[in-house]
Structure formats: structure tokens, C-alpha cells
């Protein structure tokens, strides 16, 4: 969307969140229903299960300009599909190694367990991730080839 006059502002991180349908996406809905206020930096991609998170999704988001990625799933033992969150956990652990090799801080990728009843925790997590990524500055992908 075009417009408002561009004023030089402080760095605002872009965060892409991948939320599982049954827990964290519903928790994010609850954050809304209970009118929790959180930073607007996060954009939500709906997945049926955190176990459906593909490394490609995370890398694509980071390469396209996201400064951080949040993956939200059900608490261990609560996965609607029995074990998807454990698959996500293993995949993210491997992914973090890959990120380091690409020269990207592994701390830009967050995996959090947030249940459907934890709207407040979702809002707190968005605040936490936004602050942390803001402190890290823009993604190395954006800066390392500059100048």
C-alpha cells in the first residue's frame, strides 16, 4: 500500500509467524478475543500442524526480507496429530545449524509452544520476539552484501 510520507524511522523488524491450526493459531485468535495488544510486526501464515513446517518456508521468509520467524505449535504431548510438534522441534534444531552456515543468526528463528487457551502468552511471545529481533537489527541477509 502506498503513501504516508516516508519519515526515517527506527528499524522495525518484519516477523513471519507459522502457527499450527489447533493450538497457536487458535491461541492467537484468543489474544484477539481478549483484546491483548501486541506489536503489529508479526504476519501469520496458517499451517495445519507445526510438523508441516518446511525448512524452505523459513529460509524463504528470511531470504525475502523477514528479520525473524516464529513457529508456534501445541505443547509437547498435546499435538492434535500426535507428534507433529516433535517433528517441528527436530527440524528447527537442524535448521538452526544451517542458518549459522549461511551467516545468519540462529536466534532469528523461534519455536514456541502456545496452546489454544494461551492468548496472553501469544501476545507476550510476539512482544518478546519483536523486541529481541529489533535488538538484533536487520537480517544479515539484508546487510551482509551491502556496500
Amino acid at each position, binding site marked *: 500500500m502506498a503513501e504516508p510520507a516516508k519519515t526515517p524511522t527506527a528499524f522495525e523488524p518484519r516477523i513471519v509467524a507459522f502457527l499450527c491450526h489447533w493450538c497457536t493459531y487458535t491461541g492467537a485468535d484468543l489474544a484477539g478475543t481478549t483484546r491483548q495488544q501486541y506489536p503489529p510486526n508479526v504476519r501469520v501464515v496458517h499451517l495445519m500442524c507445526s510438523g*508441516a513446517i518446511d525448512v524452505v518456508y523459513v529460509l524463504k521468509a528470511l531470504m525475502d526480507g523477514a528479520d525473524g520467524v516464529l513457529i508456534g505449535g501445541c505443547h509437547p504431548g498435546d499435538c492434535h496429530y500426535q507428534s507433529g510438534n516433535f517433528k517441528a522441534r527436530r527440524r528447527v534444531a537442524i535448521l538452526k545449524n544451517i542458518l549459522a552456515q549461511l551467516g545468519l543468526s540462529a536466534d532469528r528463528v523461534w519455536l514456541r509452544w502456545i496452546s489454544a487457551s494461551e492468548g496472553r502468552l501469544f501476545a507476550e511471545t510476539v512482544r518478546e520476539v519483536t523486541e529481541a529481533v529489533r535488538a538484533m537489527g536487520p537480517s544479515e541477509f539484508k546487510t551482509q552484501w551491502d556496500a
Partner: protein
Amino acid sequence: MNRIGVFLCWCGSNIAGTVDVHRVIEEVRKLPEVAHAENYMYMCSDPGQDLVKAAIRDKNLTNLVVASCSPRMHENTFRKAAASVGLNPYLVEIANVREQCSWVHQQQKDVATRKAYNIIKATIEKVKRNAALEAIRVPVTKRALVVGAGIAGITAALDLADAGFETVVVEREAEIGGKLRRISRTFPYHEPADAILAPRAEALRDHPNVTLYTSSEVTAVGGYVGNFDVEVATDPGDGGPPETRTEKVGAIVVSTGYDLYPVENLGEYGGGRLPDVIDGLAFEGLLADSFRNGEPVRRPSDGRPVRDVVFIQCSGSRDPENHKPYCSRICCLYTNKQARLLRDRNPGCRAWVSFMDVRTDCKNTEEYCQQNIEERGIVYVRGRVSRVWQEGDRLRLWTADTLTGEKIELDADLVVLATAVVPAAGYAEVSSLLRAGVDANGFFQESHIKLRPVESSTRGVYLAGAGQYPKDITDTVAQAQATASKIQSLFANEELAQDPLVCRVDPDLCSACGICVPICPYGAREVDALAGFSRVNEALCEGCGACVAACPNKACQLKNDSMVQVVGEIEVFAAEEGEEDYTCAC
């Protein structure tokens, strides 16, 4: 070329109070492939839906984005509206701009407006690659299987059989009846347990629609809701190998019941070491003997009639550090009943109950308990017994009355531990065979604690009785009847319509490596060696996407949630044109 329609709902002021709906629609109209965009005060209302239907017809729309509340609220509403004018319902997607935008950024109107636009744009990326899908239809085998023939299983089976459905009942023991066979009389009316059980057990054995396998276990389960194949193995009783047979059923009831936490685990109370320290079911046996013989209650060690009995509640329950964290629910009531019956059977004897709280959450039981305490002279001592030991031919206990702060020493002939109710042995095998999840304590997990209390996490597998959580006979029977009703509504269908949002395989990309087979929690993937690729059993697939993420060739994709679609959304979100799209003040 798609002709996409975008409908932005104000939701009164819920969205429009924060998001500049007119500006968003103005911008959305400029996007490629958008043939129509409008906003309205309440899109879910009848006039709102009429706008959507009219636009589909008048503008020949091919795909829709409704930007409104969460898809969990009205996705169905708009899919139905689209279907009513001939647009395939799976070509409709919801952009969640209320719960995940306007409500959470109420003070930041500009930012929320840009974010709403952004969410709509990403949803357009998704919907333009949606395919028209049809529900998957599978036939229903109108036969049920009940695992466990305690009062829960018997009740569910009888209800189903009476409704005209063939029901197969599998019981591990040689006799049916479960724990109820070991109970003397029930609270709060002292009805003999046998008077409850015997007629129902007989009705089950004689029912023309019931096939009963005792000394039998379920050894393998395949298939899915409406179409299970269950292997049942029966011990012939002569030491020979078990006979196995396969039953085809459409629904399965898990009514495997409970056990008591072993007294051996309560060493501080002498459990397992002292013969006169017993659990509640053992005491029921002593009471039953007493009723049968017309004699007083006698203790196990030397058969002497008991004069002093201490009942210890919460033995292993409500003790997260050492034993079980939960309340076993039935012990307060059966302990009170046992103390009362004991006072009736052994006149002049003394009954103490050591308790933390007395919980009477069943009908008419508060009055019952109070009356027994006030009129039948049962002594309740609030506190935890610290030690039980043998002195001569008597037992000695240390406890404290935490209401008065006094230390108390008691002598007793018999100590009855109201041990925690735990899931029946073998629950883990049943859970994995049926893919019915259990909670941290091993109790079968209901699909939703409030809204789907008798359904397990696997469709077609239902729950009844104390295997789901400790409950008394009243609640067990009520739950079993609910389960039977739920299955009857399943059996009212000739075929089932399943969500078509499942996985599909591109045989040209699939190398038949088989990685997808073990990763699928539902057994829905199978390598077809002859065809040279891995197939999806659509009736089993739940559409979780585990195989999609694991597939090295990206040969499998979720229908209407393919990788290209997700990447399309990511591109919108990660690569927004101006920095200002993310400017915020918080």
C-alpha cells in the same frame, strides 16, 4: 485467469473502528486478478451473504476472499453461501483481520489498516491457486466393537444392540462385569452391586445382536472411521495358541476401565508388608463376604472380626511429588459408604477416616455423607497419616488433626487405603493399537474436554468409563449411553463425507523412497511397489502435512495448502514493498 472477489466485513466497529475499510478496498481493487471488491457492515448477516452471492453471479467470480473474523467463526458460513450459487466451497478463503489484526492493534489505525491489506493480499495469493474439491465419501459398516466389558462397555454395547446394530464385545477376563463384580453395595442407596450388574450382564450374553468374546484381546487394528478391521485373539483356555479372527466394524468403544494404584507403592502405610493394610476393593470383598455369610467383617490376617478400622483417603492421589497429581474422585464417597456399612455390620466397632477434603460431587451424596458422619458416628480426622506399623497383633498409626493441631496416635485392626484410581493395565497397548491418545496420567484423552467428551483423538474411536477419567457408576453409565448415542448418529449415515483437504502425490515426482510412510501418524501412506510411487489413503489422511514437509522430492502436497501457496503468502509477508508497511509505535 481468475476473477477474484474480495469482501471486507466491518463487523460493526470491530474491524471498521480500527481498519480503514474503504481505503483497503480501494487498494485491493488495484491488485491483479481482483474482479470485485466491496465492504459491508456485517458480511455474515443475510443481506451481507446476499451481496456475496449476487457478486458471484453477476461478476462470474471464480475465487473469494472474505476478510472478516477468524476462519474458525464463519468459514463455513461463506463456503455454504458460495456453494448455494454454484461456486465450489473450497474456492473460498478467509482473511483473518479481526482476531489477528483489528482487535490486537486497536490504538494503531494506520498500521492495522496496512496489515489488514497485507493479510488480504496474502490470502489472495493462496486462494488463486485453490482447486475445486469434492468431499471424500466413504461407506459406513454399521457394526460396533466394544473393548472391555465392565459396566461401561456392557451399557454401551446393550444400547447399540438394542438400537439394532451388531456389536462385538471383547473382554480380557473370563467373566464380564469388570470392577463392579468386586463391589459389595453402591452409594448412596446401598443397592447390591450384583442387582445392577447381573441383569445387564445376562442381557448382554443373551442378546441376539451381541457377539461376546471373553478371555480375548484386540491384537491389531487397521482401517478408519466406518471401516475398521480388528483382529481379536481368544485364549482357548487349554494352553494352546490363541484363536484369532478379524471383525469388520465402523466404530470402536474404548471402555478398558481402571485399576487401583498398588498398595505396595505406599510403603509409609505398610502397603504390601502388613497383611491388614488393604485397598478399597479388597475391603469391598470383605464387606461382600460379610453380607453373604451374615457375619461381621473379618480381617485378612487372622479372620478376627474388626473393632477399629482406619480409612486413609488420598492414598496416592493429590500427591504430585510422590504419586499421582489428580483427584481420584470416587474415593471420598466409597470410603464414607464403607465406613457406614462397616458400622452396620460390626455393631460397636469404631471407624476413623483420615482425609484432606471430603469431595461429594455426585447426586445426593453430600446429604448421604453428612448423614453418615452425623448420625452414624464415623470419625473424620483432617490430616495425613505419617506412619503405620505393626505392634503385636494390632496396627498403630501416627497422624495429626490439622484442625486442632493435635498429634494423634491410633490403634487399629485394619487399615483401608483409598488408593488412587489409575488406568487399567494394558492401556498403553490399547492406546497405540487404536491410535487413541492418552494424557500424562495414562487416561484416554477426549477430543475436546467440553464439546467432544466421548470422542477420542481418532475419528470413529469413542470413550466410555473410568479409562477416560475416574468416575462413579452413575457417571460411567451416563457416559457409556452418550457414547452409544454418538455412535448411533454415526450409523445413521450410509456414507461419511470427509474433508477433502488431504495430501495428494504427484507420481512423476515421487521416488517411492518411503520416508512418508513412518512419518505419517495415521498409517495413510503406503509405497505401491508395482506402481513405483507412494500412495495416500484419503480416508485415513488427516491433512497434517507431516509427509509434505518430510518429502525430499516435494512429491506430496496438501490440497489447497500446497507449498506454492504457502510460499506465495510468505512472499507477500516477507517482501512487502515499503518499510512503512511495518512501521509501528509500540
